[in-house]
């Protein structure tokens, strides 16, 4: 899932200053799971901004709605009535959702209510942790299913740096050394010999460093004209 942190309410309040009708739009998928931008958080944000406005004697309409996924147009269309009423939308989706909103509704002013942070997992109730940087060339089969790019603070590919101590990372002693995790895991599954394989320098052009990426399935994308007869 993609995770994020709701922006400070004062920052959101400053963004929507001067607008009369403010819609807070939640996203029902990733950011619902990490409890940052789902329906509940959208309602909480709307309530908090209304209370703030009342305290300051500012009267404006602030309400909330939610769609299943802001990164899909078919779901965004469900919000069309809300969007039509709004002078501004604060999207609590990740940055993908915000950008898709402005593509689908080109005349609409949409501001981000979240700081999008990482792709990760639910580690325990109330704790989410980063797991993948979307490097475009996954090596998890070589590293026991533990990502060296994400779990190692320095994204080292062939073993720990000299600062790894007692299983902790030198960048922050409260986080485990990613390479210690890899070694422990390889040992547990009887694949320690994989450490003898040298991972070559990574081709970062497959990552975002090569520019914005696309995924295209031509068979799904559209249909070619089909002539009569054997093809």
């Amino acid at each position, binding site marked *: 899932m993609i995770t994020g942190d709701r922006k400070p*309410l*004062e920052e959101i309040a400053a963004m929507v200053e001067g607008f009369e009708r403010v819609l807070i739009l939640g996203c029902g998928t990733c950011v619902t799971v990490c409890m940052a931008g789902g329906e*509940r958080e959208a309602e*909480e944000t709307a*309530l908090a901004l*209304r*209370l703030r406005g009342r*305290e300051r004697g500012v009267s404006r309409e602030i309400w909330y709605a939610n769609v299943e996924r802001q990164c899909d147009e078919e779901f965004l269309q469900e919000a069309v009535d809300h969007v039509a009423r709004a002078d501004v939308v604060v999207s609590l989706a990740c940055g993908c959702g915000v950008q898709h909103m402005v593509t689908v509704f080109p005349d609409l002013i949409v501001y981000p209510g979240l700081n999008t942070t990482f792709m990760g997992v639910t580690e325990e109730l109330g704790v989410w942790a980063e797991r993948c940087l979307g490097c475009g060339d996954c090596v998890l089969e070589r590293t026991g299913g533990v990502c060296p790019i994400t779990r190692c603070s320095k994204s080292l590919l062939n073993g720990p740096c000299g600062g790894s101590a007692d299983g902790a990372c030198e960048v922050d002693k409260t986080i485990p050394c990613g390479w210690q995790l890899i070694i422990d895991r390889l040992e547990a599954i009887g694949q320690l010999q994989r450490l003898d394989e040298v991972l070559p320098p990574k081709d970062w052009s497959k990552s975002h460093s090569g520019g914005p990426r696309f995924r295209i399935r031509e068979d799904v994308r559209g249909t070619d004209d089909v002539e009569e007869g054997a093809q």
Partner: protein
Amino acid sequence: MHDKEGIMIIFGCKHTATPILEEASGREARVHLPDFEYRELPCLGSLDPLMVLRALDEGARSVVAVGCFQGRCRHLTGSQRAKAALGHVGDVLEEVGLDRSMIGLVLGSPIDQRAMIEQLAKFATNDGGDVE
């Protein structure tokens, strides 16, 4: 919608708060407390931060949760959960420049009704609770 303007909204556990605030002795509570509306919960553990924010949005001047003290909760962790929920609401209120003393938590035992009402009256007059 501000139809609860100026009143205190009390969310209470049905085991501890309802006997004091709603049943026969509720009349006595009304003598000692300012105008309040009572909303029963099966356990304080079901207090949702959104319930508290919605109550404030309805115009309540303060919101207080009343339940069993820790160790006496029939569902074991109700009062701790309520404290966490109110703590979250307090953080949200502070973020928008409001005073977290608008919300409070009163824990006690139904066999000491007087003490509970006294604590509630204290909260009502100070407009402040003990939520960290």
